[in-house]
């Protein structure tokens, strides 16, 4: 009976894993197909690989002189800077804000948390024009700093919410003991509490990085030439036959890889953080 249950569980998990991995696998497969192979019916699984998509995305070969290949490497660099910087700032500020919301009782605390979460509810299109006007007035359009600030603003509410949940799971007695023994709040926070929410920070950083890395709406309007990020750059792939799907798939593959590497590096912390976060939130 137990073996049967385990077998069934394995089957379900395998099916779910395949279901989750299939789109990624299709993305990588399609990135290696020519336009003819991409549209063939039935779909081809055996074909002669075509690397023109990757060549275009990386600005190599024939496509070097094409307007469409200009700035691709820069776009990749911009994406790394904007996503990393935005993630760092969102996690830093979100951690501090989440701790404050978890530990201190202040007027409007619940409203503050709802406000923080509501920033995730607004569709970017609704505030795009205001951001554009505002950034133009202060000279932040087409700058990495501007986009970094935008990604920070986008993720700060979410980071605050997630981190508050993790801090709620850390017993307050730990800090009380430190405070009683004469240590400062900051000492207790940095030396005692933070190590206990390492996993939560990793999980928060992971989510923030994904959202920052994939951010399109603000980047497409607020950047022109200097700060264009890779999602915007890749989306512009069009040639004489229409949309250059090979380039788009190759660009998608290039976009997925850094995120996959990042999540691989933090996987242990992620697992710990996710499960601890679940237990922690149940305690409050």
């Amino acid at each position: 009976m137990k073996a049967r249950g385990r077998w069934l569980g394995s089957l379900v998990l395998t099916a779910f894993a395949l279901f989750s991995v299939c789109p990624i696998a299709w993305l990588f497969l399609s990135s290696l197909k020519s336009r003819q192979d991409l549209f063939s019916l039935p779909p081809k699984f055996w074909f002669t690989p075509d690397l023109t998509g990757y060549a275009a995305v990386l600005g190599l070969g024939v496509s070097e002189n094409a307007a469409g290949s200009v700035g691709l490497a820069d776009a990749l660099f911009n994406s790394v800077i904007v996503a990393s910087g935005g993630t760092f700032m969102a996690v830093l500020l979100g951690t501090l804000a989440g701790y404050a919301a978890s530990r201190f009782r202040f007027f409007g605390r619940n409203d503050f948390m709802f406000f923080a979460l509501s920033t995730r509810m607004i569709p970017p299109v609704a505030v795009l024009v205001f951001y554009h006007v505002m950034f133009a007035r202060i000279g932040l359009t087409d700058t990495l700093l501007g986009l970094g600030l935008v990604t920070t603003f986008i993720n700060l509410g979410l980071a605050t919410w997630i981190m508050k949940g993790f801090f709620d799971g850390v017993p307050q007695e730990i800090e009380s003991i430190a405070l009683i023994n004469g240590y400062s709040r900051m000492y207790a926070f940095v030396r005692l509490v933070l190590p206990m929410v390492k996993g939560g920070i990793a999980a928060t950083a992971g989510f923030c990085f994904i959202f920052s890395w994939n951010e399109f709406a603000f980047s497409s309007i607020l950047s022109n030439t200097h700060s264009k990020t890779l999602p915007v750059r890749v989306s512009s792939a069009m040639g004489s036959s229409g949309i250059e799907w090979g380039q788009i798939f190759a660009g998608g593959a290039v976009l997925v890889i850094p995120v996959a590497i990042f999540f691989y590096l933090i996987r242990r912390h992620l697992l710990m953080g996710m499960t601890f976060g679940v237990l922690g939130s149940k305690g409050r």
Partner: protein
Amino acid sequence: MNRQRMMRKPGSATLIAIAAAGLMSAASAQQTTLTFVWHAGTCADKFYEIAKDYPDKNVSMVPSLVPYGPEWHNKIASEFAIKGDGFDIAMWDSQDAAEFAGGGHAYSMNKVFESSKVLKPELFDAASLARYGEYPDGSGKFWGMPANQDAFGMIYRKDLFNDPKEQAAFKKKYGRDLKVPQTYQDAKQVAEFFTRPSEGMYGWGQMGGREYDFATSASNGFLWSYGGELYNPKTYEVKGYLNSPASVEGVQAYVDMFKFAPAGSASWGWDEVNAAFQQGKLAMATNWFYFFGSMADPKTNKFADQTGFANAPGAIGSDGKFRRQVSVGGQGMGINIYSKKIPTVVKFMEWYLQPAQQKRYAEVCQTGLKSVIDSPDWQKSNRYNKLFAKAITLTNDYWHLPEYSILLDQLQEEISNASSGKKTVKQALDAAAEKNERTLIKAGYKIVRTANIPAVPDQIVTPSGMAKVEELAPAD
């Protein structure tokens, strides 16, 4: 003495450093970067490639490319909204000229024509210049020049049309010869003949997507060819024109063609039409001339050798007259009025719009320069250029009004409602006419009602009806 020498040395070094810095800053100050905004594609690539050969090496061109579609319009519009100089040259969709010019964001081309010894209106066909840069219509005020002209054409499988068995079967069924249709009435029969779902073959392919201008780019050709009109540009009436019997008949013909197209094609854009044809699913399809180069290329179209090119059909309207009108496409090239480098931009354009550069451009795209478009050399350089030179004379366009994008979205929605079967064509066009007029009234236009609008409003707006069908030979 040594101390004095030592004190002199830093002084000398400092002077040299200052001089070097001065030279460097002078050199960098002379470097000018011009930015152009366009949707990504072959024409932007070619423009950029040509711009690299600009003789003034202190001026370099930088592309700011956006995806084709609403993001392209939004990118330009949002930069204009903040009066920004994020780009110096804007290649806008032909229909956007009125919005951007009307908003005061484009530098006057009349000023350029007056001051430049090189750039003159006569370089371009009058109709082309009007299409891509004049606002208001007929005012003689220009805000852009044709950067890339485009129009709707037709592609077909000449192996199917030239097959003796197919010809015999068609003749047996319809009592006439199988040939590339000159009217939508003919096209319907030919499409029906070639629609064989069990063989994976369909007779017709056309755009129908709700997004951007996909559906209306295709349906407008039917509407105009049947003698319909989108509105009356003199009186701003829409009711009686957009929902006239001729317009309804035209759009109905467009909707009926989906019966001979693959399932789901009512949501197609140009990319899906291209893909379906390249897979051998379609006997005929209408699309932009922009894509004909790839249709003739075996690397992208495995049926390239069997692909024939033709002008899009016309129609015989209820008044018995033949009309052939197709949607105009392409882009105009305007100067951002907020750019701080306008004189440099003008100098660049004076060089770029020379025949030498435009001949290079015309190797892959359709220039607006009259001398190149009209030249026999260019028209003979491939199988479809001559057809394009004819097609550009058959073009009609959307409303040349700043409210164009709102009017377009309303018409797109209703055409989409008609092709999906949510509404009848009459209901859809009635609704579109109502919405369009409300938009115009809200924008401050005074609608002057005309008594006795004819069932075929083309008769009073832009009369183009002919007594008999004009036969335009395809290019095999």
